């Protein structure tokens, strides 16, 4: 931020404040939109939870989540399961409230992100996409003849990147763990 302002001081100083305020206005607009979106999704999520469907979904994904996130708490597993499945359906906005809740549940108060939190961010970033709904919609309205022919390539690529993400986080976690052990020994 500081660097950009410094550059702007040379190029176009009068734009700094107006740009900042206009971006902040965008943020407010986005938040109002998000508030509406979250209203719908949080309502649906509440129903999914009280009806016991969340529990069922978590049960289905539990072995996978245990392996990937190394999380034992069933409540947290449930949140992660719902976050990951919303992401897979291309519902990033529905995934966010659950992601925030899952992060709070994972927080150990140390001020540093732990293994499971890092994993959750990486998985959200690479997320397997079964249905890239927004992109298909945009492409259809741009006059594509076969807007959904990107589903398969997207699925393949996201599958590979998600796998890579999981492996990388595990590998780095292991390497750091070894280093810490060595430090303790010496």
């Amino acid at each position, binding site marked *: *931020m500081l*660097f950009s*302002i410094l550059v702007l001081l040379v190029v176009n100083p009068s734009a700094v404040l107006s740009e*900042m305020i206009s*971006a*902040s206005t965008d*943020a*407010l607009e*986005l*938040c*109002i939109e998000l*508030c*509406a979106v*979250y*209203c*719908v999704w*949080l309502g*649906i999520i509440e129903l999914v939870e*009280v*009806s*016991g469907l969340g529990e069922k979904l978590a049960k289905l994904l539990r072995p996978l989540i245990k392996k990937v996130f190394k999380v034992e708490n069933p409540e947290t597993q449930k949140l992660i399961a719902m976050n990951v499945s919303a992401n897979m*359906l291309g519902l*990033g906005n529905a995934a966010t*409230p659950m992601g*925030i809740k899952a*992060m709070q549940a*994972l*927080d150990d*108060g140390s*001020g*540093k*992100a732990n293994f499971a939190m890092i994993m959750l*961010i*990486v998985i*959200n*970033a*690479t997320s397997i*996409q079964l249905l*890239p*709904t927004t*992109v298909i919609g945009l*492409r259809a309205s*741009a*006059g594509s*003849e*076969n807007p*959904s*022919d*990107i589903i398969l*390539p*997207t699925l*393949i*690529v*996201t599958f*590979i*990147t998600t796998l*890579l*993400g999981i492996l*990388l986080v595990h590998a*780095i976690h292991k390497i750091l763990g070894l280093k810490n052990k060595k430090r303790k020994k010496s």
Partner: protein
Amino acid sequence: MSAYILPVLFVLLFGWCIYKRINTYDHFVKGAKGAIKLVVDIFPFIASILIAVALLRVSGITDFLAQILSPIFNALGIPTELVELVLLRPFTGSGSYGILENIFESYGADSYISRCACVIMGCSETIFYVATVYISQTKVKKLAYAIPVALVCSLVGTILACLICKVM
């Protein structure tokens, strides 16, 4: 086809709730109530990141970076036309959708460039935004290696996307 998926899921969910004799309306309202508090809590974080991105764009730093980096991206098999999208994607969701629409307009929705752009959108995420919002309600200050790993994965995904769109 894909338009039916969500409505059908919703119908199934409401049907299941009625079958389970749950007070559907009350619970929906209870859940929806959380939305306002959540948005108020995350607003300052969203505002800050959008301000930072806006400054980066108007100051011309992103254009400058795109120019410098495009030979490197070309060497990795990423066409120059896609460099701006690849650079801005981690920061802004709405911004990158805007770029995607520009690409559709300039090159046609069924061109190689457009199809690559679509797959890139699918395999990448607004990483900085997600990371900021997700940890905004926790005590975490240091994200350790989360962002670098996520960025590396997106880059690999981008390279793969450009490859795979050539054959599929």
